C-alpha cells in the first residue's frame, strides 16, 4: 500500500511538472495602440482563433498567446491603421507549438479585418466594417451595425446574428450560413453546397439575395414580415407554408413545386431565394 501511495505521488508530481513546462512555453504578448476615429485593424493569423470585441475609448488592445517560441507576431502601424501578422520563425512547427490565439479589444467604430485559416473567428459589437475569411474557419459575427460585413470561407460554419443596417456579403463553398435578425439595405449570401438559414423579418426595405447551387435554403418568417419574395429551384423543390399574396408580375414562370412568388403585408423588402438543385423552404414562424 505504501509503495502505491509513493507511485501515485510521483505520478502527480510528474504531471504538475509537465503542466508547468508547457505553461512556461506559452508567451503572452500584449500590444496597445492609441488610434483615432475610424481606425482599422487587420489581423492575419493562420495558426489559431481570433476574437474581437469592443470597448469605449480610443485604444486597440491585442493580446496574443503564442504556444511556443517558434512563432512570432509582427506589428505594423501607420496612423490609425494597425496590422498584426503571425508567422513561424523558421520551419512551421507542428501541433500545438504552432498555435497562436488572439483576443483583441477595439473601439466600436473600428474597421476590422481578420484572416485565419483554421479559425474560429468571433467578432462582436463592431460598428465599423467587418471582413473575415478563413478556409476552414467557423466565423461568428454578432451585434454589428451600420457597416459592411464581408465573410468568406470554404467549409467553416458562418453564424451572423443581430446585424442591422448593414451591407452583408457572405460567400461559402460548403460551410453552412446561419443568419438571425440580419437586416440591411443589402444582404447577399452565396454558397455552392452550404445550407443557408435565415430567421427574421427581412426588414429595412432591403434587398436580400440568397443563392446556392445544391445547398438548401430555409427561411423562418414571422407573420408581420413585409416582403416581396421570389423563390426558384431549377432542379430541386420549393416548399412554402406562408400565406403570401400572389404577384401579378413574376420574373419567371411560377411552376408549382419549383418556384413561387408573392408578397406579404406591403412587400417592403425584396427577397430572392435561388437554388440550382437544393430545396427551398419558407416557413411561418
Amino acid at each position: 500500500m505504501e509503495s502505491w501511495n509513493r507511485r501515485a505521488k510521483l505520478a502527480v508530481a510528474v504531471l504538475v511538472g509537465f503542466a508547468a513546462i508547457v505553461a512556461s512555453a506559452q508567451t503572452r504578448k500584449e500590444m496597445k495602440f492609441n488610434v483615432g476615429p475610424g481606425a482599422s485593424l487587420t489581423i492575419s493569423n493562420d495558426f489559431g482563433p481570433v476574437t474581437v470585441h469592443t470597448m469605449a475609448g480610443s485604444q486597440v488592445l491585442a493580446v496574443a498567446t503564442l504556444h511556443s517560441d517558434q512563432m512570432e507576431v509582427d506589428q505594423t502601424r501607420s496612423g490609425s491603421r494597425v496590422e498584426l501578422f503571425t508567422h513561424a520563425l523558421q520551419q512551421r512547427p507542428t501541433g500545438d507549438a504552432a498555435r497562436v490565439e488572439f483576443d483583441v479589444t477595439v473601439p466600436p467604430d473600428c474597421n476590422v479585418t481578420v484572416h485565419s485559416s483554421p479559425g474560429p473567428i468571433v467578432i462582436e459589437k463592431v460598428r465599423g466594417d467587418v471582413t473575415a475569411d478563413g478556409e476552414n474557419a467557423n466565423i461568428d459575427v454578432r451585434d454589428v451595425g451600420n457597416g459592411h460585413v464581408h465573410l468568406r470561407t470554404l467549409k467553416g460554419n458562418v453564424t451572423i446574428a443581430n446585424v442591422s443596417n448593414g451591407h452583408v456579403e457572405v460567400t461559402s463553398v460548403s460551410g453552412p450560413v446561419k443568419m438571425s435578425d440580419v437586416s440591411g439595405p443589402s444582404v447577399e449570401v452565396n454558397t455552392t453546397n452550404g445550407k443557408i438559414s435565415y430567421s427574421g423579418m427581412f426588414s429595412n426595405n432591403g434587398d436580400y439575395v440568397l443563392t446556392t447551387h445544391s445547398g438548401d435554403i430555409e427561411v423562418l418568417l414571422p407573420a408581420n414580415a413585409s416582403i416581396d419574395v421570389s423563390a426558384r429551384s431549377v432542379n430541386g423543390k420549393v416548399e412554402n407554408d406562408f400565406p403570401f399574396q400572389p404577384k401579378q408580375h413574376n420574373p419567371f414562370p411560377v411552376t408549382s413545386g419549383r418556384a413561387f412568388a408573392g408578397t406579404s403585408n406591403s412587400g417592403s423588402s425584396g427577397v430572392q431565394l435561388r437554388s440550382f438543385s437544393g430545396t427551398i423552404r419558407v416557413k411561418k414562424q
Partner: protein
Amino acid sequence: MTCAEFQRVLPYIIDAGGDAGQEQHLRECAVCADLVADLRYIADQAKLLVPMEDPSPRVWEGLQKSLEREGLVKSAPARRSLLGLPLRDLGWVAAGAAVVVLLAGIFFTRNTTSADQPKTTVAMESPATGPANAEDQQILDTVAQLSPDVRDSYRQGLRDVNTYIQDAERSVKEDPNDQGARQLLMQAYQQKAMLYQMATRSGE
C-alpha cells in the same frame, strides 16, 4: 322603385344615366347610392392604371429571330458565343469571368515555391465532373505548402465549384434568355473567384 329593381337595370344605366324614376331612387336610397359610388370609383381608379412594366429582353430577341427568319428585315443574325449567348449580352459573363481569369493569370506568373520550402504537388483526384484545368492545378500547387486539411478544403472546394459552374453553364446554354440561370452562373464564377483570391492570400 325598389333596390332590387334599380340594381337589375344598373348595368345598363350606370355609365349613361337612368330615367327620372331611377335617378330619384339613387337620390333617395343610401345603399344604392353607395353601391354606384363604389362601382364608379373602381372604374375611375382603373383608368389611372398606367402600364408599368416592360417585357423581358427575350421578347425582342425572339421577335428579331422571327423577323429575320421570315425575311421581314434585312440585317445579319446576331453572333453568338460558345455559351449560346448573343455576344452583346456576354459582357456580364465576361465581367464575372475576368476576375477568375485575372487571378488565374496571377498564379501563372508568380513563382510560388521557395528554396526553403519543398514543393509538394497535390494532384486533383479524377473528379466526377471532369479533368481539372491548369489554373485549378496551379491553385492546388500554391496551397500545397499549407496544412493537409486546408489543402483538402481547396481540393474539395474546387471540385464542388466546378460542378456548380458546369451545371450553371448548361442551364444558360439550354435557355440563354433565362435570367435566373444567368444569375446562378454569375454566382458560380464568384465562388471560383473567391477560391483563387483566398488561395492567393494563403499562399503568400
